[in-house]
């Protein structure tokens, strides 16, 4: 701490600190994930075969919705207190600061979601062979969803009520992630290989990693102009 860290580490550290100081916001999507999934067996009855068949899809859809739930907060407070415009006019590359923000956001929301998923898999009687597929697909998927979602959050941060609009912008982009993620888990549950699905998810993540922070930075410039 003797020397000032780079803006990337400073922003990353600041956002993590903020996430832990606002535990409520961080826990909100997790609680939604937990409640929504524990409601499924109650609603459908304890039919093990049925639960096993729908588990991959349900887990993935709920993870996706949980991510959407917290997306609006990503830039909201920075926009409201003026630190966002300070970031935009700084001499540092915006790509890196955006990456730092999304990384901190993902650690606070996506990572706990992934860590919690095997527990909920048990609840939906997902075969134990599918847990690795579930975790690894969610690891790649939530990271890609955070990056892509940041673009939607950046586009709508200037609007007073952007919540619904984010979903509309971001949902179509989430569809391929959902399809391949759920399919990886479903294949693993049947004992089949799931390398192909993970490879596609990885490719989506790499694309998002390269393009999404740039798009986010551009969208923020437009939002701040207003």
């Amino acid at each position: 701490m003797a020397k000032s860290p780079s803006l990337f580490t400073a922003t990353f550290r600041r956002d993590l600190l903020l996430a832990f100081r606002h535990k409520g916001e961080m826990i909100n999507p997790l609680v939604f994930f937990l409640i929504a999934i524990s409601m499924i067996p109650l609603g459908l009855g304890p039919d093990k075969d049925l639960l096993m068949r729908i588990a991959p899809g349900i887990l993935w859809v709920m993870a996706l919705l949980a991510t959407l739930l917290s997306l609006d907060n990503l830039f909201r407070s920075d926009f409201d207190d003026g630190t966002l415009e300070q970031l935009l006019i700084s001499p540092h590359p915006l790509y890196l600061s955006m990456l730092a923000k999304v990384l901190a956001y993902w650690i606070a929301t996506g990572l706990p979601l992934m860590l919690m998923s095997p527990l909920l898999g048990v609840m939906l009687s997902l075969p134990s062979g599918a847990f690795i597929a579930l975790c690894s697909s969610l690891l790649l998927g939530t990271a890609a969803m955070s990056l892509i979602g940041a673009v939607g959050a950046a586009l709508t941060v200037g609007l007073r009520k952007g919540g619904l609009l984010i979903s509309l912008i971001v949902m179509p982009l989430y569809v391929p992630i959902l399809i391949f993620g759920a399919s990886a888990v479903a294949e693993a549950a049947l004992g089949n290989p799931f390398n192909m699905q993970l490879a596609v998810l990885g490719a989506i993540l790499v694309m998002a990693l390269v393009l999404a922070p740039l798009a986010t930075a551009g969208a923020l410039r437009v939002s701040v102009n207003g």
Partner: protein
Amino acid sequence: MAVAPVLFELRDLACERDERLLFARLNARFYAGQAVQILGPNGSGKTTLLRILAGVNRDYQGDIYWQGKPVTDLAWEFANELLYLGHLPGVKKSLTPLENLRWYAALQGAVPDEQLLTALAQVNLAGYEDTLCYQLSAGQLRRVALARLVFSKAKIWILDEPFTALDKSGIAQLENRLIAHAEAGGLVLVTSHQDIRFPQLQTLNLQDFAEYPTLGEPAHG
């Protein structure tokens, strides 16, 4: 003043907002060592002008030159020389003043913690380093933001209503700081609804560049 280099030059600057022309044909030169107060009634575009100059808002017509070159060509060099304080303080309320300043220090380059603590002491916030900003008053929040002026190396200060919520001694302190910065060869652009005690203060009245003066009579020419 004649030998001081031109830092900023505005050529034919115009800005429209919600189909209303805020100002047009704004030509101005700002020199190193100047302190300029932007004047104008509410809604005349003072904040918008400062946001344009700071590079936050890019929605304008005309050209801005910085040290003789278009500012868009020198974006990085310009950003290094700029300190902008908007009308939002830019202070995170769930962080302590010190944590807030640490982030700003990283924005600017290496500043050791001791220097940040001195900066906080200079704006009379010694003892509040580890208090969450939620518990600070509006004036104290403003002081956290103003502490950036103490350790900043920027040449151009663009300050939007920096005196808001400050007490009398805070106002006097800030005035002295602005004067010292101008005298050291910096440039201060400031909006304020109160009078600033500074003999060399220059003013730029945005009403002179309003397309339609507020009285409703169309401007000629």
